[in-house]
């Protein structure tokens, strides 16, 4: 997995772990030649884009001491900083958290919208969920809510529903409110696919849940799906040995209600058979950073540290809302060149060297990418499995952890 090369013959690296989308693929093949990284096989388009590096020294090079000094001064002066983006491995997350505990401020991740849409269900009622290996081997009926998951998770079906499974011989995919593209169809091979058009997946899903748990609602169509088609889907789900509901909350609206209805559907199914929710998400280690906050602060993301004590609020401390009250933005994005959101006050960027900001930030500290320049740990979307990222080349830039720890005065 990990390999360092000096200039010379290109090196093929097998079983590379990918930390970008949260699906946790760990069988990528990459070619490394000097500083150049070229995706070769088992790489989805998004990972290919993010892995690819050219044989150029990272132009600016590491930030000078003065840059760190300036960042420290900004932090010391800030009364209400926001630590956002948080695209970092666990160790980077730890360093940011220590910094935030020292200075106070809000912590949120760039990809937390979907997470909190799901939390609207899971924090309020809990849910019955499942993980990738269970889906791979048990799932005979998969309910996809919304559009084709492969848009954001390129190898989803290949990973979740491989042709061979331990406990089921058949795979039936029901897509509610969307359709599958060519890539998805190719990955699914011989699986049965039912596409169920719906213009309002919340309503369609609600009706589906009601059909599973009680008397069917009256009407010919629900949320744009016909009652007949929904009844068929309900029968398939009830007849499944192990049904799984998946959705990508980040791509749905209102995603909180989708999550709630899917949770309810799965609860109803478990009365007589087995089923689980399998929410998709987890870009840029949002799952891992969230886990870290839970065990360190007892709260998920969107938590403010205010004078050594923390407080969580899913809306007030979302990045967008928090920035309205902030006097400093610390933007961390090591996995991809994602620019910080617009903000009037001072901005410190600790991120991918290719980040292009609309207005130059007050401080820019380029860092390496976990899984390319540095080893590190990221969590898969299920929050249970975490993966060791390896380094593909010699780092010329610090890791997030290294950069952030330089911002803390030595005790």
């Amino acid at each position, binding site marked *: 997995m990990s390999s360092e090369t000096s200039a010379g013959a290109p090196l093929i690296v097998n*079983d590379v772990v990918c930390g970008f989308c949260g699906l946790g693929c*760990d069988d990528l093949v990459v070619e490394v030649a000097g500083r150049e990284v070229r995706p070769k096989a088992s790489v989805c388009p998004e990972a290919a884009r993010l892995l690819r590096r050219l044989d150029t020294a990272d132009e600016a090079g590491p930030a000078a001491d003065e840059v760190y000094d300036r960042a420290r001064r900004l932090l010391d002066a800030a009364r209400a900083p926001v630590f956002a983006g948080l695209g970092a491995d666990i160790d980077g997350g730890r360093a940011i958290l220590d910094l935030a505990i020292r200075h106070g401020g809000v912590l949120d991740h760039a990809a937390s919208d979907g997470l909190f849409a799901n939390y609207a269900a899971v924090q309020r009622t809990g849910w019955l969920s499942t*993980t990738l290996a*269970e889906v791979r081997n048990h799932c005979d009926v998969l309910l996809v809510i919304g559009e084709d998951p492969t848009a954001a998770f390129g190898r989803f079906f290949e990973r979740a529903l491989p042709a061979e499974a331990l406990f089921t011989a058949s795979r039936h995919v029901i897509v509610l409110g969307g359709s599958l593209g060519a890539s998805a169809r190719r990955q699914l091979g011989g699986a049965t696919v039912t596409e169920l058009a719906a213009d309002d997946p919340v309503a369609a899903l609600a009706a589906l849940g009601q059909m599973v748990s009680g008397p069917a609602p009256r009407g010919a169509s629900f949320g744009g799906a016909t009652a007949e088609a929904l009844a068929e889907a309900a029968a398939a789900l009830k007849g499944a040995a192990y049904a799984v509901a998946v959705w990508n909350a980040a791509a749905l609206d209102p995603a909180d209600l989708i999550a709630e209805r899917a949770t309810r559907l799965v609860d109803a199914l478990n009365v007589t058979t*087995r089923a689980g929710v399998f929410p998709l998400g987890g870009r840029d280690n949002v799952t891992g950073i969230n886990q870290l906050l*839970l065990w*360190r602060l007892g*709260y998920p993301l969107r938590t403010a540290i205010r004078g050594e004590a923390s407080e969580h609020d899913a809306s007030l401390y979302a990045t967008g809302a928090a920035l309205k009250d902030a006097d400093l933005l610390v933007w961390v994005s090591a996995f991809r060149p994602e620019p910080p959101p617009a903000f009037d006050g001072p901005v410190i960027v600790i991120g991918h060297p290719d980040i292009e900001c609309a207005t130059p930030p007050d401080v820019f500290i380029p860092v390496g990418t976990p899984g390319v320049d540095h080893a590190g740990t990221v969590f898969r979307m299920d929050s249970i499995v975490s*993966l060791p990222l390896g380094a593909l080349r010699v780092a010329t830039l610090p890791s997030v952890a290294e950069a952030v720890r330089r911002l803390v005065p030595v005790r």
Partner: protein
Amino acid sequence: MRIRLRGGRVLDPANRENAVARDVEFVDGRVVAPTGERADAEYELGGAIVMAGGIDLHSHIAGGKMNLARLLMQEDRRAYPEKILPQMSGSFCGCGGGRAVPTAHATGCRYAELGYTTVFEPAMLGANARAAHLEMADIPNLDTGAYLVLGNDDFILRQIAQGAPQEEINAYVGWMLKATQAFAIKIVNPGGINAFKFNARKLDLDEANPHYEVTPRKVLTTLIRAVTELGVPHPIHLHGCNLGVPGNDETTLATIAATEGRRLHLTHLQFHSYGTEGDRRFSSAAARIAEMVNANPNISVDVGQVMFGQTVTASADYMSQYRNRGLANPKKSIGMDIELDAGCGVVPFEYRDKNFVNALQWAIGLELFLLVEDPWRIFLTTDHPNGGPFTTYPHLIRLLMDRDFRNAQLATLNKTAQAHTLLGQITREYSLEEIAILTRAAPARILGLADKGHLAPGAVADIAVHDENADREAMFSKAKLVFKDGRLIVRDGEVVDLAPGTTHVVRTEFDTAIEGKLDAWFDRTVGLKAKHFRLSDGELRGGRGPTVLNCVGGAS
């Protein structure tokens, strides 16, 4: 650095010292024989009791289920905010809070305040091992370790179903212990969690898994043999079948019989000691189970005492937790099938003293404590947080040591429950020495930690000092001094420093031929490479790596 504790009374049952007035000295984190040399620091103890740091061999402190519990129990977190200590402000991070599911830092701090220095997470799933170790690395002031949950994983069930030779099972167990950096093997509802994935709602000791046709008995005996032959010091740590089900006393007795004299640790025995007598079809079977434990020296137990109040139950036993989710309070719960490995269920719970079942559970736990005779084979646990948070230990210790107090508490409980327990007639009171055995000496011995749980030269300088107090709850609520690896971390019940802990792991010899099979298994079924499943030493404790106990196998 030489530190001397003067004028204390040493309570060290492992070395047969019962409140012996003598100095205790340690140098660079290890206890040494007392010398006359000048010490870097001396503490005058004025007759206070000096013990080895407490060791909790069963407390859920890390891993995915605890984070799920934290997510679900924001009420608990809000009700117990950060304990900000003015004497350490600016340099101290006791971040987070919570009582039923405290954060990593709060766990380390609260345990330290009670005089505990080593705690074992008893249910680490292999799939979640990396996360559990990441979390444990963030627990200050405690050494930790984790028991790996096996017996519901499809790999081993397939092996058993296919009649794989014991050597191959042993190799798998050895590989898994190493790969997940675990300290012992835990079995949770043997095969039951797996059976639930095939829609079985219960599985008794001799019922066959609907898919594999393997019984819990077979899983249990196979894994007992494996750890015995691999030489893992701690016996199989068993959370048996039918947790919480009235009538599970028969299962528990049958389980003890199934060991055929091999060592087995029955965990949170209280939850497995329920009869079906009386109008409510729920009764205490503590007496008959204690009798069987007394008669079988190969058996050790911890109690999993129920303590009244709000808590949250978190267990790998999804089958049982799904059954109990209707009792959730507040009414919400999480369940999860996990990675062809096991599962988990998180159900918030409030034990109420006026509730018949809860009150009787409380009494059953205490009956077990008082009826199991050998203090070296029974351990003080609440199965934190399942029976109650570990911060209730001082209260529990007083219940054990003070009969009048115990009976006064009993008198306030649900009246019907009072009539269903023999507790009021039990006169036994634990001695201070016995408490020291339950909470230090015996756990160290059963875990095979030779340099812990005692104060002889060579021991790790994990030391707790408590002022004598006739009110044992007050005495054990706040340690006077606590040293971790010789470093002062608690003074007068308040944390004054954070010391990094280590993580204990075991390593066994095993036939590496199993790796080929595992590579194929992980590739084809799990969808994760075995080499990425495996944790390197450098992934533990922020790169400092584990403290390894090498096992000598061969016995059977």
